[in-house]
């Protein structure tokens, strides 16, 4: 009887193995796609400082659900939010919030970014995206550094690490400044570029955002500017990163796992939505609120609580009864948050001042924000 039990169990085991082996083999071809959205992009804002082009002829009224609600911001994220008169890009006179954001990513731990050695693990580092036709979001760990030459099909990328396993990282303010710009100084090529909030006064660069109190749909959509909007934690949501330009200098400008990084002109800012910034929880299973675009409409995460996406308009927006018109951020790997401005933005002359001049391209190779 004992023997029979063993035989039975052996048969079960063999049967299970056969079945599972079948599973394994049948799934071997579908290991891929499963992106859950997150890696986005980053951007190193390129240049353009217009607040969008042209919205003419305003019409339409926004529902109260669409109105910017400063109570949605994380406590401590804003220094102030005052309502003032403003002029939209089509000449419409209205009222806007002048939001003074601390720029500290309130409630979030900033970093880490670059690996220090080729043994650094994903937990010790941030993320990066490729820019060729196989672009992906990668953990910027030691293995990633070792694989760069293969990834970009260029052995010059081996220059980022040394025989002793160390990785070239911009670890000083001078190095950060020399590398986090369009014309990377020669000595900082072949580096993983990262900057520290220690280089910034009070650990951050405050930003001013002038955003319509109540968004107004434009007759025609307009292109997003270098500054897409402001996150609820008070840091900037930036436009696409010029990844090609960064790679051309044999540098990578690693983001932290929340999709942000630092330069001396914008401070800490986001190029990708990886989930960290969805702090505005919704009661109905809708994706969380990330922040507000410069036209005043809310930007939410890509997927709802069930992991579903919906069809959107060309700006990546949609409308529902609860939120009115709103945007959904793209996946982290798509190098953008939204596709265009659905609403009218504030005319440049009243859009609030950037904190200081910077190189024409953002980034860490970036621009001083026009907000």
């Amino acid at each position, binding site marked *: *009887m*004992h023997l029979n*039990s063993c035989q*039975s*169990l052996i048969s*079960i*085991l063999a*049967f*299970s*193995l056969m*079945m*599972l082996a079948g*599973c*394994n083999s*049948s*799934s071997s*071809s*579908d*290991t*891929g*796609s*499963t*992106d*859950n*959205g997150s*890696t*986005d*992009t980053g951007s190193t804002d*390129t*240049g*353009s400082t217009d607040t969008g082009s042209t919205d003419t002829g305003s019409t339409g009224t926004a529902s109260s659900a669409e109105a910017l609600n400063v109570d949605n911001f994380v406590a401590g994220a804003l220094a102030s939010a005052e309502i003032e008169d403003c002029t939209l890009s089509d000449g419409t006179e209205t009222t806007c919030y002048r939001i003074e954001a601390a720029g500290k990513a309130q409630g979030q731990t900033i970093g880490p970014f670059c690996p220090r050695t080729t043994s650094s693990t994903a937990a010790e580092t941030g993320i990066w*995206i490729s*820019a*060729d*036709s*196989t*672009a*992906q*979001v990668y*953990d910027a760990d030691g293995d990633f550094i070792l694989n760069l030459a293969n990834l970009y099909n260029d052995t010059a990328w081996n220059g980022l690490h040394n025989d002793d396993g160390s990785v070239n990282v911009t670890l000083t303010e001078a190095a950060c400044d020399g590398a986090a710009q369009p014309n990377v100084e020669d000595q900082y090529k072949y580096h993983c570029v990262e900057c520290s909030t220690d280089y910034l006064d009070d650990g951050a660069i405050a930003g001013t955002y002038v955003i319509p109190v109540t968004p107004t749909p434009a007759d025609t959509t307009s*292109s*997003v500017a*270098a500054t897409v909007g402001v996150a609820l934690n008070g840091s900037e949501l930036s*436009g*696409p990163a*010029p*990844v090609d330009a960064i790679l051309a200098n044999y540098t990578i400008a690693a983001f932290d796992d929340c999709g942000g990084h630092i330069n001396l002109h914008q401070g800490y800012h986001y190029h990708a939505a990886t989930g960290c910034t969805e702090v505005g929880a919704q009661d109905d299973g809708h994706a969380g609120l990330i922040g507000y675009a410069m036209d005043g409409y809310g930007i939410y995460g890509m997927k709802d609580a069930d992991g*579903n*996406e919906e*069809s959107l308009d*060309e700006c*990546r927006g949609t409308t529902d009864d609860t939120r009115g018109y709103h945007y959904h951020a*793209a*996946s*982290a*790997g*798509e*190098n953008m948050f939204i*596709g*265009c401005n659905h609403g009218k933005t504030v005319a440049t002359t009243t859009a609030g001042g950037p904190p200081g001049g910077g190189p024409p391209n953002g980034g860490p190779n970036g621009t001083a924000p026009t907000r």
Partner: protein
Amino acid sequence: MTLEFNFIRRSLVLLSYSLTLSVTPSHAHSGSPLGVAWSTCDGKPKSQACEYKGFHGERYIGTCQVMANNMLCVRNQPIEYPEKASTDAAETHTEEVKEIAEIVVEKSEKEAATESISEDSLD
């Protein structure tokens, strides 16, 4: 014998789950091919439909929009995963295997219990 049986049963369940994990698609790499997202809109006017394929064959469908002074294909439809159907099938298959394994184990456990009672009665 009961201890021995439990050990084998637990090993079987653990093995099943371990193998189940091995057939779960990797989430390590995700994203869109940035270069293609830009080049696919070269020479196209704003708002024109565009589409490109990602690293794993997924489809990104949207329209061309001005981004950083260039045209970029901005996706506005959910990402389409061509292999989703086969992934679902694999997951369903795995669930079936787990269910079968658990049923068989339960049956064997009952048999073992019956045998144990019989042995005890013989003693």
